[in-house]
C-alpha cells in the first residue's frame, strides 16, 4: 500500500521536473526564427510538446497510483485538489496546443502549472481518509470536472496575459503597464511564498502559541513561519522563537494573515530585486519572447478556451455540484461561500461571452477580462478555502 504511495509521489516529482524541462524547450523553440501564425513546429517545439505529454502522463500516473493507494480519487484536500488543477492546466494546454500549435502558449502555461503544483505541495500532503460527507462517487465526478473546466479557462488567462505582454506599450509608464505589473507582482509573490515556506520547513521552524479564540476559549496554534503578527492575546510557548510584533483580534486568523504578510514581503523583495537588476518591468522582460505570435490568434485562443471551458465548468462546478449537494447536504444550493464563488465565476464568464458578442470586446479588453476571470478562479481556490470558512473548508 504505502509503496504505491511512494511511487505516486515519485511520479509527481518526475512530472514537475518534466514540465520544467518542457518550459525550456519551448523557450528554445521561440528563439528559433520564422515561427509565425500558420507555420509548422520546429524541432524544439516538437520536443517541448513531447516532454509535456510525457510529464502529463507521469502526473496521470501519480493521480491513479495515489487513487489506488488511498481507495478514493485524490481530490479531497487542498494539496490534492491544487495539484490536480495544475495537471488540468497542462491537459488543457495540450488540447489547445493541438488546435493552434502555438509554442509560446507552452512557455507561459507550463510555468503557471509548475507554480501551482509547487504551491500545492506547501499544504499537508499525506493521504487523508474521507469524512462522511465526502464518501461519494460524486466527489471525483464533481471535482475533476470542475477542475478541468477551470484548467481550460486558465488557458484563456494565459493567452490573455501573452496578448497583454505583447501589446501593451512598455516604452511609457501607463495605467495598463501598472496593472500588468500588478499581475506579475502577484505571481512573483506566490513564488516568494513557496520559497519562504519551503525554507522554514527545511529549517523545521515551529512556534507554538496559546491564545483566546473567537468563541472566547483558550486554544493553541502552531506557526511554521516566524510570527510577524500573533494570535489574539497570544503567548509564545516555544522558547527562542520570534515574538510577534502585534497581536490580532480574535476574528482574524493570525496564522494565515502572517503567511500572507510573509508572502507579500517576500514578493516585494523578489520583485524589487528583479527590477533593480534588470532595470525593466517584468512584462517588458517577457515582451521579446512573445513578439512572434499573432495577436489575432492569441485573441482567438483566449476566446476559444472560454467557449470550451465554460460548459465544462458549468457542468462540473454547478450542475454536478448541485446534484451532490442535494445528496450529501440535503439541499442542492445553500449559498455557502464556495458555492457562491462558483456562481460568481459562472456569471463572470457569462458576462465575458456577452461582452464579446454584443459589445465587441475583443483583443485587449477581452484579454483583461480573461485575467480577471482567472483571478476569480484563484480566489475561489485559495482565499475561499483558507480565509472564508464554510462547508468546503476541508483542508
Amino acid at each position, binding site marked *: 500500500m*504505502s509503496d504505491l504511495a511512494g511511487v505516486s509521489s515519485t511520479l509527481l516529482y518526475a512530472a514537475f521536473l518534466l514540465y520544467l524541462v518542457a518550459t525550456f524547450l519551448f523557450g528554445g523553440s521561440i528563439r528559433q526564427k520564422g515561427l509565425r501564425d500558420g507555420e509548422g513546429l520546429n524541432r524544439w517545439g516538437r520536443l517541448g510538446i513531447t516532454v509535456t505529454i510525457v510529464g502529463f502522463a507521469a502526473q496521470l500516473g501519480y493521480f491513479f497510483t495515489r487513487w489506488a493507494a488511498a481507495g478514493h480519487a485524490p481530490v479531497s484536500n487542498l494539496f490534492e485538489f491544487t495539484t490536480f488543477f495544475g495537471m488540468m492546466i497542462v491537459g488543457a494546454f495540450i488540447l489547445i496546443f493541438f488546435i493552434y500549435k502555438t509554442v509560446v502558449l507552452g512557455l507561459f502555461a507550463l510555468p503557471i502549472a509548475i507554480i501551482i503544483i509547487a504551491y500545492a505541495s506547501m499544504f499537508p500532503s499525506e493521504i487523508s481518509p474521507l469524512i462522511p460527507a465526502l464518501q461519494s462517487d460524486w466527489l471525483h465526478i464533481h471535482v475533476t470536472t470542475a477542475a478541468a473546466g477551470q484548467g481550460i479557462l486558465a488557458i484563456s488567462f494565459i493567452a490573455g496575459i501573452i496578448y497583454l505582454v505583447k501589446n501593451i506599450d512598455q516604452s511609457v509608464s501607463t495605467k495598463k503597464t501598472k496593472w500588468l505589473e500588478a499581475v506579475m507582482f502577484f505571481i512573483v509573490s506566490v513564488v516568494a511564498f513557496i520559497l519562504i515556506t519551503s525554507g522554514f520547513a527545511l529549517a523545521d521552524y515551529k512556534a507554538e502559541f496559546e491564545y483566546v479564540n473567537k468563541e472566547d476559549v483558550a486554544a493553541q496554534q502552531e506557526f511554521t513561519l516566524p510570527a510577524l503578527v500573533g494570535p489574539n492575546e497570544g503567548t509564545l510557548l516555544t522558547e527562542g522563537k520570534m515574538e510577534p510584533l502585534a497581536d490580532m483580534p480574535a476574528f482574524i486568523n493570525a496564522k494565515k494573515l502572517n503567511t500572507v504578510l510573509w508572502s507579500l514581503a517576500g514578493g516585494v523583495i523578489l520583485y524589487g530585486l528583479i527590477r533593480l537588476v534588470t532595470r525593466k518591468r517584468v512584462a517588458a522582460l517577457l515582451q521579446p519572447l512573445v513578439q512572434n505570435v499573432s495577436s489575432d490568434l492569441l485573441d482567438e485562443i483566449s476566446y476559444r478556451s472560454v467557449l470550451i471551458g465554460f460548459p465544462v465548468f458549468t457542468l462540473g462546478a454547478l450542475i454536478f455540484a448541485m446534484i451532490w449537494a442535494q445528496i450529501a447536504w440535503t439541499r442542492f444550493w445553500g449559498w455557502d461561500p464556495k458555492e457562491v464563488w462558483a456562481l460568481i465565476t459562472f456569471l463572470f464568464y457569462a458576462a465575458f461571452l456577452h461582452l464579446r458578442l*454584443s459589445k465587441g470586446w475583443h483583443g485587449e479588453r477581452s484579454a483583461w477580462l480573461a485575467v480577471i476571470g482567472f483571478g476569480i478562479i484563484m480566489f475561489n481556490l485559495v482565499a475561499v478555502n483558507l480565509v472564508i470558512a464554510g462547508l468546503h473548508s476541508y483542508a
Partner: protein
Amino acid sequence: MGKVKCECGHVNPNGTILCESCGRALTEKAKQEKLVDMRYEGSARRSQTYNKTIIDKVWNFFSSVKVGIWIIVLLLVAASFGTILPQEFYIPSNMPAETYYEDVYGVFGKIYYMIGFHDLYNSIWFSALIAALGVSLVIASLDRVIPLYRALKNQRVDRHETFMKKQRLFAEQEGVLQRGEMEKVRTELMKKRYKIREENGSLLAEKNRFSRWGPYVNHVGLIIFLFGALLRSVPGMYIDELLWIREGETLQVPGTDGAYYVKNNGFTLENYEEGEDPEVFDEAIDRVGTVAKNYQTDAVLYRDANNELPGADPELTEVQTESIQVNQPMKFDSFAVYQTSFRQDEMKAMHFALTNKETGEEFGGIVVDLFDQQESYDLGSGYKVELRGYYPDFDGFSESGEPTSKSPLPNNPAFLFNMITPETPDGEVSFAQIRNTMEPLGENEYKMAFKNLETRDVSALTIRKDLTLPILALGGIIFMIGVIQGAYWNHRRLWIREKEGHIYVAGHTNKNWHGLKREIHSVLNGTAIPEPEDRQKD
C-alpha cells in the same frame, strides 16, 4: 405594420436591414457601411424598429444585451458581498444575529447586519435582480430568435454582390468558374460536412446552422431553471423538516401528515482507527487527531394504515428498513430522509440501590427512566421507593426551598425520593443526583446510592421533499445542451458566385474565424478561385 419590398422582389418585415433573401442593404445606414453587421443577419428586430409606447420602451430596455450584462454584473457583485461575513443561517443558532455580528466582527459586523447583508440572498432587491435577469432573458431571446430564424430560412443561394462585398472574408477576381474546379471544391466541402446548395451557377456551402440556436436553447434552459426555483414557494412543492429522534424511539415523520412513522434502531458514529483502517491514513490521523468515518442511523419506516381514520390509534406496518448515512438518504414516495446531525450519550435512565448507610447492605435496585417515571417502585418485603419529585434539568433551589428545573430536557436530573422500609414505615426523604445525595429533612438511615447511568444517542434526520427538482433538472439539461451547441460548433458559410465575368467569394462564421480561414484555404487551395481575405485583421 409596413413591409419592405426589396428590388429582388422579396417582401421583408418592417425594420429589416439586409434583405432576407438576397442580402441587399435596405437602410441608408447599411448601404454606407463597409462591412455589414451580420450578427442577426440584418434581420428585423422589434427592439430596433419600434420605440413609441411604454411597452416598446420596456421591451427595448430588457432586450438590450448591455442591460443584460449589467444585470449579470450586479448579481455577481451582490453575491460576492454575501460571502464577506457568514450569512445568518450559518451563524451558531444559539446566538441572536442582532448581537452576533457586532460581538464577533465589531463595528464592521454591526454595519453589515444593519444594511441587511447578513441575509442578502433572501432580500427583496436580490430577488428583484434575479427576476430582472429572467425577464431580460425572455425578451432578449424573443427579440432575436424569430427574425434570425426567418432570415436564415429565407436566405437565397445567390446573394447580391453588394452583400458579399460587405462580408469580413471576401475576394473578387475577374474570371469564370471552371466546372472541374467547382467539382473539386464541392467534394472538398462535402468532406468537411458542408451542405451545398446551388442556384443559377452560384454556390452556398453552409454547416452547423443549428449552433446559432445554442444561445436561445440555453436561455430557455435558464428560464426553466428560474421558473423551477420560483415554484418552490408554491404550497406542497417543498418540505424541509428536522427530526430529532432518540435511539429506540418511533416518531411521526413530519411533513407526511402522519402517514409515516420512523423508528431509530440505533445511531452509530465511527472514527478512522490506526491499525484497523488502511495504513496510508495513519499519518493524517496522527496529525489531525480523530477523523470521522461514518454517521449512521438504522431506521425502520412504517406506514400508518389508520391515518385516514380520525381518532383511530396508529396501526403501523413496516415499509422498509435502511441504514441512513451521509450521502445515502432513505427514500420513499417523493421524500428523502437524511442523516444531518446527532447528539451522543443523552441520559436515558438512572440506576439506584436502596442502601443502609451504616451496614452498606442493599435492598434492591430501581431504574428510573428519565422519560417515563413511575410514581413508586416496590422492592418487596416492605421496601418501597416513592418518587416525590423529578427535576430533569436541576439548577438549584428556589427561595422557598423547592428544587427547580431549567428545562424539561434531562441534562442534570435530580430526584426527590421517599424511602419506605420496615424500620422507617413513614419514609425518609432523600434528594439524589448523579453523584450526590442530600437529606433535606434530617439525618436518614437509608440512602439511594447511585449505581449507573444509561445513555443513548439522538440522531437528527432531515426530511425533505422537493417536487421542483425535475423541473430544475430539465432546465439544467436544456441549458447544457444549449451551451454545448453554441460553443462547440460554429455556423459557417461560404458563398461562391460568378457574375458578369467576376468571381465573388465570401465567407462568414459566427465565431472562430481562424478555423473558417483554414478550412476555406484547404478547400480553395490549388484552384483559380480566389481565397477570401480577412478585412478586419489588425
